[in-house]
């Protein structure tokens, strides 16, 4: 059957799927709950890029695809398409976040205190070879009584750092905007995009892409080198309107999020404006413990408020090229046969040679 290049597709796909299954099954058992409990940050990354909050399904997706981030995001996004969308949640007030970590780079001390919480920031990145031998039963806490439940104290809640600045009129006054948010998952973005659409798009964006955009802006292709007013990580309640009584809301669960507020001096051109200079903010909010992405998001957000010709200041550029699914889909489609279009190209090239 060598005379038709693309015949036998069905058999080939079946065999390919069988091979994939062989690659996936290592013989060593790894359960979904094991991935969920041990690969938390990876699970968080998947949930954030998928725009789908379920630690269990994210872990399941990872198990199913040999740990590929884009494949796992893909699986969750596809599953998301099958679910009816019954509600939009009520706005979340992050002042009511049950904190596990909260820092401010803007002030030495803040009301409520700096709470370092779990972070790799001050760990030394030395490969810990003792983990090669670690077994669940051999985990030895430094002292006998230091278990996670002993470490936990009272729940921590505190106000935001920006509330202080706002009280001093140092923050740019932003009027309250209660227009219905734009839903990027069921509408095509149009430009200029409303801020709600920008923030949603960034929140689901590929972490690497968003990091690159933010980095370029900080390094000089753009103007945003912000101060992190506050980075907080913790649990917030998600509520939806109660069907039988619109004034009531129903709590449907808790999600872990990272929130960042970054501050940059507002743009001034005249001396008069300089005197009235205030601070403007960039905002980042990401599912899970996802700090760099949240900071990158706040920079990307702030960058779109500035004028200029760099990539990070170009709305259409940054909002249309950062989606994991879209970029990996379009790049991978080049593996599909293109012989008809190529035949047309050959036809044109040959004519030119003959001419």
């Amino acid at each position, binding site marked *: 059957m*060598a*005379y*038709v*290049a*693309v*015949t*036998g*597709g*069905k058999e*080939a*796909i079946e065999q390919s799927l069988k091979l994939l299954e062989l690659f996936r099954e290592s013989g060593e058992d790894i359960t979904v709950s094991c991935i969920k409990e041990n690969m938390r940050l990876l699970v968080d990354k998947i949930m954030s890029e998928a725009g789908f909050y379920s630690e269990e399904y994210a872990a399941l997706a990872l198990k199913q695809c040999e740990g590929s981030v884009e494949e796992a995001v*893909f*699986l969750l*996004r*596809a599953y*998301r*398409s*099958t*679910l*009816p*969308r019954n509600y939009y949640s009520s706005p979340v007030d992050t002042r009511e976040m049950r904190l596990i970590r909260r820092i401010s780079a803007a002030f030495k001390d803040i009301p409520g205190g700096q709470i370092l919480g779990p972070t790799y920031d001050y760990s030394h990145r030395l490969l810990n070879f003792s983990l090669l031998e670690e077994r669940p039963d051999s985990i030895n806490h430094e002292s006998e009584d230091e278990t996670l439940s002993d470490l936990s104290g009272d729940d921590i809640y505190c106000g935001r750092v920006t509330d202080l600045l706002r009280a001093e009129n140092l923050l740019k006054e932003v009027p309250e905007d209660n227009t219905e948010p734009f*839903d990027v*998952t*069921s*509408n*095509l973005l*149009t*430009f*200029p995009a409303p801020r709600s659409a920008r923030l949603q798009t960034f929140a689901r964006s590929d972490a690497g892409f968003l990091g690159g955009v933010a980095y370029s802006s900080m390094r000089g292709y753009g103007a945003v080198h912000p101060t992190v007013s506050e980075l907080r990580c913790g649990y917030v309640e998600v509520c939806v309107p109660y069907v039988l009584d619109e004034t009531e809301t129903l709590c449907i669960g808790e999600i872990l999020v990272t929130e960042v507020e970054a501050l940059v001096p507002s743009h001034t051109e005249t001396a008069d404006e300089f005197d009235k200079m205030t601070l403007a903010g960039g905002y980042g909010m990401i599912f899970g413990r996802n700090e760099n992405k949240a900071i990158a998001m706040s920079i990307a957000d702030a960058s779109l408020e500035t004028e200029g010709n760099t990539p990070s200041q170009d709305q*259409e550029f940054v909002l*249309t090229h950062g989606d994991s*699914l*879209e970029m*990996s*889909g*379009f*790049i*991978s*489609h080049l593996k*599909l*046969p*293109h*012989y*008809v*279009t190529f*035949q*047309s*190209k*050959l*036809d*044109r090239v040959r*004519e*030119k040679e003959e*001419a």
Partner: protein
Amino acid sequence: MIDTKHYNFAFLDEGSKREIRRSILKAVAIPGYQVPFGSRELPIGRGWGTGGIQITLSIIGKEDVLKVIDQGSDESVNAVNIKKMVEECTGVEITTDSEKATIIQSRHRIPEIPMRNDQILVLQVPTPEPLRIVEPKESVTKQMHAEAEYSGMWLSLFEDLTLYDKISISSEYPTMVENRYIMNPSPIPRYDNRKLNDSETLYLFGAGREKKIYAIPPHTKVESLFFDDVPFETENFEGKSCRLCGATGVFLDEIVDEATGEKVYECNDTGFCKGRRDRQHGNTNFKN
């Protein structure tokens, strides 16, 4: 079949399908206009035909008969993959016979046998915006369409002429719909462009990644862009014929014969070619 406990008929939830059908209706009402829609993610790669698949999934019913082709071939891996997905979540009958199909989904080709008014051709589109080659920004191209400001496009064709003495666009050759909208016919060869004009059938175009749907209803005027003194040209297969069924005047694939090293040709539309060969062998019960 995929399990019905976790998945709906035709994969998408009913609300999503209804939403997509509304966009399709709008597209039919404004031929050639790109209707934005809330493109859903599918279990198949974005950029692999998800716009077409979303249209197919939204319009398909249990009685439909589906044919899927990729680059003219029923057997191509992508066609097989899409058929498998739709079959698994709908259970509809799948065929390779373009005359038996009620819905044909295709990438990069329009079948050789003219389609009827009780059939729908769904085309997959990577880049729906025909003006993208002259203007990268969506906000600007949208305005250009609104004002029918197409001088940039004509100028780019003219520049091509001055540089190469010919228009160098190979496939995905831009068309004018009802003298109003310039439309990207999807990456079909130039040879297929004329089939869009005054057709019996409904053409639906879906771009999943770019979140656009557009349509050519039956008997719509669709012209490939040309200048009065420079006629539109299609691919040239003069003097060549299919080595399997002998067909001439069809779009051919160029293949190098491994044994002789010679260039040979075969029908690109594999369903059409198989049908011809079956009839030549007196087999009139042509099925799958």
